[in-house]
């Protein structure tokens, strides 16, 4: 009876981790970007994919978003197979990256309205006004998105990413190119938002202090593979270092054939 009404399926997806990646591989003709990646991200936590350039962080995020098809492996997002049922999951997740601007010629409000419509939100105007107030972007809602400063663009991108109240928020370098004050503001906002909503955040970052502050779980990546994982404190203790940045440098240089330590 329960199965007939799809209730068991619903319970199963609710109980599943926010992200479950199993033996994920992405090969390009001349490179292996992700090589047998497996990890899970528990619901209601903030986790980070950490690694140097070319570690496979953005590739992994792109696969989780359904923007990129993997060569092999299984990816479950919010209990659904993203490769087979991405349209069941996409309304429940969102994404923000400072490297992908919103269209420049439209005003901030127009951009947000269009995305609100794409997510099929009712009461779009109200939702936009509420987010604009929370993220302090009300003053430039009518300004073209291309004429904003980096800090303003980041807050607008965050507003777009929170429009649909996502259960899973994927962030690529959320505070890249921001001054320390604005970056701190964004981190505080994300902390408060996650605590309030119980949502899950998975971020790719190079900023170790940010990861130490926000994340309870860190996946250290190198050349498309996981080289270690754990809480920031556990990693720092395990490697006997003072902070996560030293752990990162240790791992990055440990087996690196390309980069010699700076003398």
């Amino acid at each position, binding site marked *: 009876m329960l199965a007939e009404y799809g209730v068991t399926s619903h319970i199963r997806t609710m109980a599943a981790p926010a992200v479950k990646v199993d033996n994920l591989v992405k090969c*390009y003709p001349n490179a292996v970007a992700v090589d047998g990646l497996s990890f899970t991200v528990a619901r209601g936590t903030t986790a980070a994919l950490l690694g140097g350039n070319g570690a496979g962080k953005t*590739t992994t995020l792109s696969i989780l978003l359904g*923007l990129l*098809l993997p060569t092999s492996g299984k990816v479950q997002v919010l209990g659904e197979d993203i490769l087979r049922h991405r349209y069941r999951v996409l309304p429940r997740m969102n994404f923000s990256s400072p490297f992908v*601007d919103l269209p420049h010629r439209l005003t901030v409000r127009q951009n947000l309205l269009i*995305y609100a*419509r*794409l997510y099929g939100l009712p009461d779009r105007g109200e939702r936009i006004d509420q987010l604009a107030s929370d993220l302090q972007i009300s003053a430039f809602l009518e300004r073209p998105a291309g004429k904003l400063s980096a800090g303003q663009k980041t807050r607008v991108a965050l507003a777009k990413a929170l429009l649909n109240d996502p259960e899973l928020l994927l962030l690529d370098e959320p505070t890249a190119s921001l001054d320390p004050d604005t970056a701190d503001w964004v981190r505080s906002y994300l902390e408060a938002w996650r605590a309030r909503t119980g949502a899950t955040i998975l971020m790719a970052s190079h900023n170790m202090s940010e990861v130490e502050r926000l994340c309870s779980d860190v996946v250290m990546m190198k050349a498309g593979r996981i080289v270690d994982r754990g809480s920031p404190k556990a990693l720092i203790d395990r490697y006997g270092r003072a902070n996560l940045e030293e752990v990162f440098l240790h791992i990055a240089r440990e087996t690196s054939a390309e980069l010699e330590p700076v003398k």
Partner: protein
Amino acid sequence: MTRDLCASAGRVWAMLLRYLYLLRSSWPRTLELLYWPTLQMLIWGFMSKFLYVNSSYVFRAFGVLLAAVMLWDVLFRGQLGLSMSFLEEMWARNLGHLFVTPLRPHEWVLSLLSMSVIRVLLGLLPAALLAIPLYHYSIFAMGLPLVAFFAVLLIMGWALGLAICGLILRQGMGAEGLAWTVVFTLSPISCVYYPVSTLPGWLQYAAWALPSTYVFEGMRAVLFTGVFRADYLFGALALDLVYLVLGAVAFFVAFHDARRRGALLQMGE
């Protein structure tokens, strides 16, 4: 089911709204839409006035050149209208944002097709209306056949536009120039201003493989003899269907391939 359809229509409307906002945000772009069809109509209108007393061909039907140039613009603007809206997303590097929303590729395509109709109408209606006081010629006098010609050319423009967009998705922005040029390679064998019989025999086979040729032959039949050739219409529609399927397949295969290559996030200038 009905809820899904409504949601889908909402997303198509969202994308259409985006292109309308873009059009509204730049008056030079809106002006550009009107400028070229009007200029073409002026040139060919004066040419028709001149040829009306100097050529037996135009004497038989004053509007034969004017109608041809306006209908040709339906094909050109139909293709360009679709490709331009597509290119807006490339220039804005917006595919990475769009396709992490519930927007389906076919819904995006539907919004591109709708925008193509709007751009064609915005470009052509003023030119067609201006021809009435200037040359005492109304293309609307053709009546229902005009609707059929319009539809056939628009669908052909869509097929061509989809194939070009697919090529840009596959090859990147290096192929952008095709959006403006490809349609002109079809102009000589579409027989816009002259009958198919003018072409050498071997080229006539190629001409009859294009829906546009049937339209322009049909247009001349209506203007010269007052006869609407239904056989031409059905031939053109059948070819349209084939080309539209081919164009759509090229687009969706290229889109899937872009997802495989990871190009949706990187695609742009």
